[in-house]
């Protein structure tokens, strides 16, 4: 297992270097002079030359790549070029640190809701295969899945923000609520990071709680222990947020997240739903499901405790990869809902040829994807006894 882990880590590292080199080279071979996007054509030649020298663009490509890789080893992703959306000289790590929490919060929520919904519907429609109960959700899911994301977003904005006035047109904050805090030095990440932390704490707490109470013999006692555990978490979290005085701001973020989450869930829940459905259909043909039925167990118990659990593996894999690919999905949504995260940084840096920023975002995204693959591989090895690594 250790040997496998080391091998996979090395493979991932080589892949990451190849990705970085490819992205770096793509920017070098793109036609046209990169400085034309940074300085106006009206800029005098001397001023333009000064910009080129200041950014080190007069050096050969291999030298620039070597400098970049040297910096990367020291966790220095370089500095942004001075283009329309980025302040020249701003460290790329600072840009990522500012934007990553926004993307993580929005899209992890989306992915979790998508998969929770997809899992719940998927197992049910597989169980009732052939009827309207399968056909209707499948048709709705597939139709919504094929809606162009900007169109879905605009329709939701038009309906819920313009017509009904229920939600804002974008962004993550109500100015009047946030301004006094911002004037005291608060940044949005002072709210986003604790929100992500609360979520992570909740997941860890829940897993440990379920594990530690699973051996209780009496179901009523188990339920009571779990309820008490959840209550402790809720009270603790509320006390923390209350003490920081940031609770209204966190709720404000959640309120602003509603429309983008709704748009992405409507478009995205079909994928996990169909994966779950297919996996369930496979599992339902297995002998152990038949045995469970033969034992006279209730239908719901057979579905949830036996079939659905066994069918979970592909959806868990898909979930891990979906979490890793959030940056990919963020490009359009963040632009439409004025949620300036990693996706928007990627989009703008690519269109402005601000390749230090693009590379920074790609490296973060690439690292996450490779890590997710690694975790999935390890999960497979750990969970499924049929998978063995030589």
């Amino acid at each position, binding site marked *: 297992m250790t040997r496998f882990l080391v091998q996979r880590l090395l493979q991932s590292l080589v892949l990451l270097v190849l990705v970085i080199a490819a992205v770096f080279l793509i920017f070098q071979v793109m036609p046209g002079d990169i400085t034309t996007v940074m300085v106006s054509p009206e800029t005098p030649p001397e001023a333009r030359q000064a910009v080129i020298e200041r950014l080190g663009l007069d050096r050969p490509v291999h030298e620039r790549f070597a400098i970049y890789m040297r910096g990367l080893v020291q966790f220095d992703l370089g500095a942004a070029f*001075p283009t329309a959306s980025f302040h020249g000289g701003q460290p790329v790590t600072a840009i990522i640190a500012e934007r990553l929490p926004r993307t993580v919060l929005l899209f992890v929520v989306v992915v979790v809701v998508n998969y929770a919904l997809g899992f719940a519907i998927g197992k049910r429609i597989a169980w009732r295969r052939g009827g309207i109960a399968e056909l209707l959700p499948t048709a709705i899911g597939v139709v919504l899945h094929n809606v162009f994301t900007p169109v879905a977003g605009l329709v939701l904005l038009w309906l819920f923000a313009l017509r009904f006035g229920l939600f804002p*047109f974008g962004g993550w904050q109500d*100015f009047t609520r946030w301004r006094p805090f911002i004037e005291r030095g608060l940044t949005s990440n002072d709210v986003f990071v604790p929100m992500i932390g609360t979520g992570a704490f909740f997941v860890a707490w829940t897993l440990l709680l379920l594990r530690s109470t699973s051996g209780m013999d009496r179901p009523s006692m188990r339920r009571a222990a779990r309820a008490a*555990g959840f209550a402790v978490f809720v009270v603790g979290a509320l006390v923390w947020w209350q003490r920081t005085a940031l609770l209204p701001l966190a709720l404000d973020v959640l309120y602003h997240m509603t429309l983008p989450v709704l748009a992405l869930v409507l478009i995205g829940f079909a994928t996990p739903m169909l994966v779950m459905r297919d996996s369930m259909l496979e599992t339902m043909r297995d002998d152990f499901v038949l045995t469970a039925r033969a034992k006279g167990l209730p239908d719901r118990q057979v579905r949830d405790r036996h079939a659905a659990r066994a069918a979970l593996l592909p959806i868990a894999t898909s979930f891990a990869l979906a979490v890793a690919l959030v940056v990919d999905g963020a490009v359009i949504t963040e632009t*439409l809902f004025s949620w300036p995260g990693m996706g928007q940084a990627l989009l703008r840096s690519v269109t402005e040829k601000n390749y230090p920023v693009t590379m920074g975002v790609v490296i973060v995204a690439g690292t996450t994807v490779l890590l997710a693959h690694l975790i999935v591989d390890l999960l497979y090895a750990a969970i499924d006894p049929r998978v063995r690594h030589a």
Partner: protein
Amino acid sequence: MLRTVRNASLAGLGALAALGLALIVTAPRWASPGADSAPGRRYITGIFEDPSARNPWARHGPNGTVWNSYVSAGALPALFGYTTERLDWVPRLAQDVPSPLEYDEQQRLWRSTVRLKRNILWSDGTPVTAHDVAFTFDAIMRFGAIKLGGNFPSYAPDDVLARVRALDDDNVEFLMHRRDARYRFGVLTSPIFQKGFWEPHVKAALMAEDPLRAIFDVDVTGEPVAGAFLRGTWERGSFIDRPVNRRFTPDTATEELFANGAVRLTDGKGETWTGYGQPDGAPVLRVSNVPRVDAVHYKVYGSQAAGVLALQAGEVSFLYNSLGLEKGFEDQLKSQPGITIVRNPSNSVRFMGFNFRREPMRRPAFRQAVATLIDRQFITERVLQGVATPRVSVVPVDNTFWHNPDVIEYGKGLTRADRIRDAVRILEGEGFSWTRKPQLGADGTLIQPGQGLRMPDGQPVRPLNLLSPTESYDPLRATFAAWVERWLNEVGIPVRKNYLAFNVLISRANDQQDFDMWISGFTLTLYPAYLNTMFHSRYTSPRARNTAGYVSREYDALVDEFLGEADDMNRARTLALRLQEILARDLPWIPLFETPIVEAYRSDQVTFPTTRGLNGLQGARNNEMPGLIESVDLAQ
């Protein structure tokens, strides 16, 4: 085994509970501020991108974007500026026009002085003095205007400005290498930085490894300003909020424009300055620069679509966008109650340029024939349905002082058949010939396109290229390219359009000078210094701006004279008009069209002092002085 797992889980739960407790005890405390104590009357606008910086050095430097300029508008004072709508050059911080340039034999420099208005205050309560002015230019020159880039080379052109000295608190002396109009329209319009705030930063930056990065990176929160609104609060990606400057002392409290061209300005103390003649009758425009709102708020939207919906809902009163509204959004908004749409010219030009270094483009007759064939009206009105307006002179019509309305326009008013006949006549006059000459029917339709065009020496005209931006970058220019290709091929000029990404286009035309004809565009300045930089023969090298390679001794001499006229504006104007005549005759460019700026605002929420002017509502004056904008709906 199960028990071990359960015990480990319990231990983990306990550890997590302890961690949670520790987090609660050490939680950072942001004291609850209660209700928003800030004044509520805000002029709320939408922008589509964060500024890259609010730092004024960065704003005016090479990284300056329109968004930087919108959110910093009017913060720093200038000695001179332009009036609303008519764009007359007038004193702002200065009490009067500068003294005429006089040659100082001892210093071998040209000398001029400017007297400042008294009691104009920075927001920290200190007065704006001649020392601030001298410090500003000294700092720019220490960094190097060229190195600073952006607008700085025009604020302190090193071939013009020698040094600047404060004679006392109120008088500042400018010493110049030569007489040059850039003194008035460049140097004297420079933003003035407060010495008290910036001096330590400039000193530190000059000693840093990278002085420019150091000065561009200075945090300007709390920087004293002299405008109506402070720097305020900036939440990246979300908003910028600029509260009113309670110490605001306007250098121009009232601006009055008269029908006879006269201008009367009144400062905060009631003292007046009159220029461009004596006021006669009632003013045609009266603008008062007193803030009527308590804050200006810029809300960031990720897309124009979301911003337009927000405007429709009344969440914002106005949307900034240097390119104006797209046609679809204009249609979406024009029927909405409470929304007014305005259309104004932009200070820019889209043109087709020739490469004078190559045959046959170097021949005036060839260029005139091409100009005759291009029917701007047809494309702008019939094809583009009025989204662009035809352009004849290099200087825009609405830059009224400098524009020449009487330049020659080849093919003006001719039908297509007459244009073809005229072009053929011009080409034949130069000695061009065809293997098959274009033929027109009795009704004027083209029966036989021209083929095998030959140069006067009998050599065939090689296939020519016409570089143009792609349809996705600019459909208007791409459309023009398609029509120009068609019309030129009709008379046998073998041209093929070549759509290129914009940076590739610039690279090919400007850097490599590898093109025959190209379609491009520029944003222009109010003072037409571009008549020099884009057409003088000293700028024909690669990466310089005379991309055409146009060389005319007559033009060079006149443009030098124009630049040197730093005192007599009427003479400078006469020279500018003559220069436009020469350009229209020689055709290094064929100006094609300009795109109006279409903007929408909530007329049920705000009023603007004027809705007319170059570059629209977001144009210089409204943008410089957000205090001009009156909030109708104070509940905003």
